[in-house]
């Protein structure tokens, strides 16, 4: 079945959507789609069928999000920890992924109509090669779309993502693009797989579990977390509205906390720049003390050069990632 359901909301649903939209709405929602296997057990079907139904529910949820004005959705499809499952189940999930990505490639027109950009986050090298190529093709095919964004976390854990970001920064240092003193919170955020997205405003986990399970740990520090006991294949529009309402209730406190954090971040960056400049001047120093004005000028120069270095590094990183996908994609064409 299709990646986005073409289904209208009922009158009552439309009314509720309009009422909710009178308040602050999340722009980016993350879902941990938990409960497929329990649903399969409950309804006495195969586990594979449970996962399949889970995918159908994803398509429906995407439609609801679009109706509610939520243009960016991130979903936790497959964790690196899930490789521990039985070979049968893992192979089943890989096969499901193959089917869905193949389907995606046949739905180009539909996706273009809705302007859906699909991104896949995670360590794709852990997946079978043919799936990697399929994923790369899908990502490259929808890259130019910019109306709404679906980020699928596949072969992903947050710790891997953070460690990978640190690795990329170390690569930047190795290449001489940045210095170790340029490493900051902002730079680390830019090196994550999710660097092209803003942080999620709302994270929803279904099936009643109340943990994050290594999902977007860095990005959800100031997000609204909503844990719902409904199983994922049974998720409804009203569950989504409930989560959005919860977000609206916490909105003010979260804004405040985020602003406070941003201020702290800016202060820390300034302090770091100052100490770097002080060190620099000491090394360069000819014994003469500098007056405040020239110190300020040095600071501005340093900040500008740091930002330039960082910009070049991030461009190089983006290029590296784009090349990875386009190479895989062209391999697929050849094969």
């Amino acid at each position, binding site marked *: 079945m299709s990646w986005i359901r073409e289904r209208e909301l009922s009158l009552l649903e439309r009314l509720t959507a309009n009422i909710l939209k009178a308040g602050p709405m999340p722009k980016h929602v993350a879902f941990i789609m938990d409960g497929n296997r329990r649903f399969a057990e409950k309804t006495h079907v195969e586990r594979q069928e449970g996962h399949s139904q889970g995918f159908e529910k994803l398509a429906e949820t995407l439609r609801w999000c679009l109706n509610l004005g939520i243009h960016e959705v991130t979903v936790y499809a497959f964790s690196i920890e899930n490789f521990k499952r039985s070979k049968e189940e893992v192979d089943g999930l890989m096969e499901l992924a193959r089917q869905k990505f193949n389907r995606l490639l046949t739905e180009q027109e539909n996706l273009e109509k809705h302007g859906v950009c699909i991104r896949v986050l995670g360590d794709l090298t852990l997946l079978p090669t043919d799936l990697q190529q399929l994923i790369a093709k899908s990502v490259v095919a929808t890259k130019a779309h910019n109306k709404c964004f679906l980020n699928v976390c596949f072969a992903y854990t947050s710790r891997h993502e953070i460690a990978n970001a640190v690795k990329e920064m170390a690569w930047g240092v190795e290449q001489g693009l940045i210095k170790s003193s340029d*490493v900051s919170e902002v730079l680390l955020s830019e090196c994550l797989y999710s660097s092209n997205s803003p942080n999620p405003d709302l994270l929803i986990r279904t099936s009643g579990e109340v943990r994050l399970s290594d999902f977007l740990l860095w990005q959800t520090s100031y997000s609204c977390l909503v844990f719902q006991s409904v199983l994922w294949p049974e998720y409804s529009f009203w569950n989504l509205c409930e989560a959005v309402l919860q977000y609206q209730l916490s909105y003010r406190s979260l804004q405040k906390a985020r602003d406070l954090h941003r201020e702290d971040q800016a202060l820390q960056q300034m302090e770091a720049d100052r100490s770097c400049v002080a060190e620099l001047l000491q090394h360069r120093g000819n014994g003469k003390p500098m007056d405040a004005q020239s110190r300020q000028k040095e600071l501005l120069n340093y900040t500008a050069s740091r930002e330039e270095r960082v910009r070049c590094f991030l461009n190089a990183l983006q290029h590296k990632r784009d090349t990875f996908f386009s190479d895989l994609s062209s391999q697929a064409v050849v094969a």
Partner: protein
Amino acid sequence: MFSSFSSNCRVNVTTDPRPAVRMTRKRVSRPIRELHVTQQRVQSGKVGRKKKWQPARCGVGSNQNDKFLDRPPLARTQSMALLYEMVWRFLHALLYVQRTLVAWFRVHIWRWKRAVVGLLLPLALGFHNPKKTGPIGKRTSRRIRFGAEGRTLEKLPLHVGLLITEEEIHFTDIANLVVWCMAVGISYVSVYDNQGVFRRNNSRLMEEILKQQQELLGMDSSKYSVEFMKNGTDKQEHQVLSCQSMVKVLSPDDGRLSIVQAAQQLCRDVEQREKTSKDINVTVLDSLLRESKNIPDPDLVLKFGPVESTLGFLPWHIRLTEIISMPSHVDVSYDDLFGALQRYAVCEQRLGK
């Protein structure tokens, strides 16, 4: 509350590139064509030129500002928008009232319960126990009770984090929680708030904890070690004879900032050619982060307050942590805490399998 919400609503509306119009019911029956209008398209006047493509706010209908003059009168759509906003405000007012009432009832019922128990307990003891149970005896029996109850749970967390999201902090209640956790048998307790209040007042917190230990358990204060987290190296460790529990005070600096500092360290090693970028992985980063904070990952985080967020609490360490919400830390009772521990005891961690 309403004014700030309405200002938020206004912000929401003004950032929308189209004027403040909402869908009318008439419009929503149209098939969903397009989902989003970017500012560029509006400004370049491309909006609505093609018959096929109609910008819609969120697919709930379509709403074009160039076909605006053809639409029903402005007044009607504006009044619909106003109506939705009023319903929204009413809904939030109801929720606010409900929350306040629930909080009020919770506090007052707890106080009433405590008062009744305070009155009846001495009477009960008087009937059943001719021996005079002095304050020390009572405390010792409570300590034994806490410990025994802790052992009845299927599993007890090794490390509990107390995450306070409320702005006004009552140190006595926090101290109570810490002491109860230690009495039940939890080895590590962390205390966190996102404004760094605990970090700034750690001596006050320590005093309160020692005081409550004395009052609630009658424990010799030297039996517990209270260690406070500082960035980088641990300081102010009070050496004790036998340490059964450890209390740590955390702030946002211990979260993202410490990850950044670890990253800087690794990059410096790479700069000095002691490592290569290929050597960096989860294990390396994890061991570096554990160097400065020698405690296990939190198994359970008790979040107090209405804000549904971790507010920057140790992002790296909470990957498998159960997050249980409690309404407030003010006048929190032992039963509340025990209830949360019972919930933790029955949760099942599949670890990906």
